């Protein structure tokens, strides 16, 4: 399985529909302070089922919906889609034989989040389980947030155990 593209719309500062290609090898993401780089990682965790607004650096989950600028009004919904290439058929049932899996999360002000896989509405649990197999889910040790690289060192031995589970 390979992640191939992240699509955002109305998510934090990415108000315009944006396609972020994910390609083989090492891709650098650069730009001035405050331009939206870490928002991309937030969007990845969010679409994978992140349930806590604290991990979105927000005070409520609705804070991730585009809240306007000096010139543009706020939006009322946000959406993110992660496209997965499953041509190696490693995804768990019922997606084993599907070549491309598109997981979408959408949030509307005052009415919460909803998930869909390849256009079919699903429960949050189903999306989370799919990602838990792939990469360890929204709290994966391979998604290292800004300023938190040395967290593993100060974590307790018990918390570090999750890493081993990922290797097994």
């Amino acid at each position, binding site marked *: *399985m*390979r*992640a191939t593209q992240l699509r955002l719309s109305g998510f*934090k*500062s990415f*108000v*315009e529909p*944006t*396609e*972020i*290609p*994910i*390609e*083989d*090898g*090492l*891709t*650098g*993401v*650069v*730009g*001035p302070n*405050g*331009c*939206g*780089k*870490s*928002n*991309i*990682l937030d969007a*990845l965790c969010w679409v994978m089922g992140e349930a806590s607004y604290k991990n979105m650096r927000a005070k409520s989950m609705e804070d991730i919906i585009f809240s306007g*600028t*000096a*010139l*543009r009004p706020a939006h009322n919904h946000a959406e993110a889609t992660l496209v*997965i290439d499953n041509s190696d058929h490693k995804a768990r049932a019922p997606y084993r034989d599907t070549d491309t899996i598109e997981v979408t999360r959408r949030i509307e002000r005052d009415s919460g989040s909803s998930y869909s896989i390849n256009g079919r509405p699903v429960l949050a649990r189903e999306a989370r389980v799919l990602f838990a197999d*792939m*990469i*360890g889910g929204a709290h994966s*040790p*391979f998604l*290292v947030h*800004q*300023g938190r*690289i*040395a*967290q*593993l*060192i*100060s974590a307790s*031995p*018990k918390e*570090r*155990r999750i*890493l*081993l*589970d*990922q*290797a*097994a």
Partner: protein
Amino acid sequence: GRERLRQAFEVVDKNFSEIFTRLFGGGTAHLRLLEVEENEEEEKKGGEGESKDEAAEAAKPKESKDVLEAGLEIMARPPGKRLQSLGLLSGGEQTLTALALIFAVFLANAPPLCVLDEADAPLDDINVERFCRLIRDVCKTSGSRILVITHHPLTMARTDRLFGVTMQERGISRLVSVDLQSDGGIREREEQQAV
């Protein structure tokens, strides 16, 4: 379950010690599976390295009775230094140790995607180079995809491609393709949308 975990532990421990020595240009490091209640004890006494007699301590890891319940201890010794508790390592040393552990697991079971958000910020130039060489090699051997968010010109120069995020319109993020100039600066490619 238990057998698989024990095998995973052996692989990760071996990877960890190799990557640590490579990132620090020497020194030794390894992992231990410890009884949970013993862990709490160790943490209070200062565990991870309080002992002066490093070789003996390391030789008899207190293997946990039930692997499934155990916690993961880290023993890390930079070159020429004594084994000390992880908290005494510097900011850069802790970052390198954490990277060694993350990639020890990565090589045991490569994920479809990995994102590192300014993991190179605490590192000096020599360690940024080592960090870059590690992630390039990991990418090549596992065929995996790694995104690195960075302000560091040395890291930018080591990537396969660069994406810029700009706020030409204040408060609105857009993605553009950028090229690294010979002087380390970044220039936007003509077309506005990322390829």
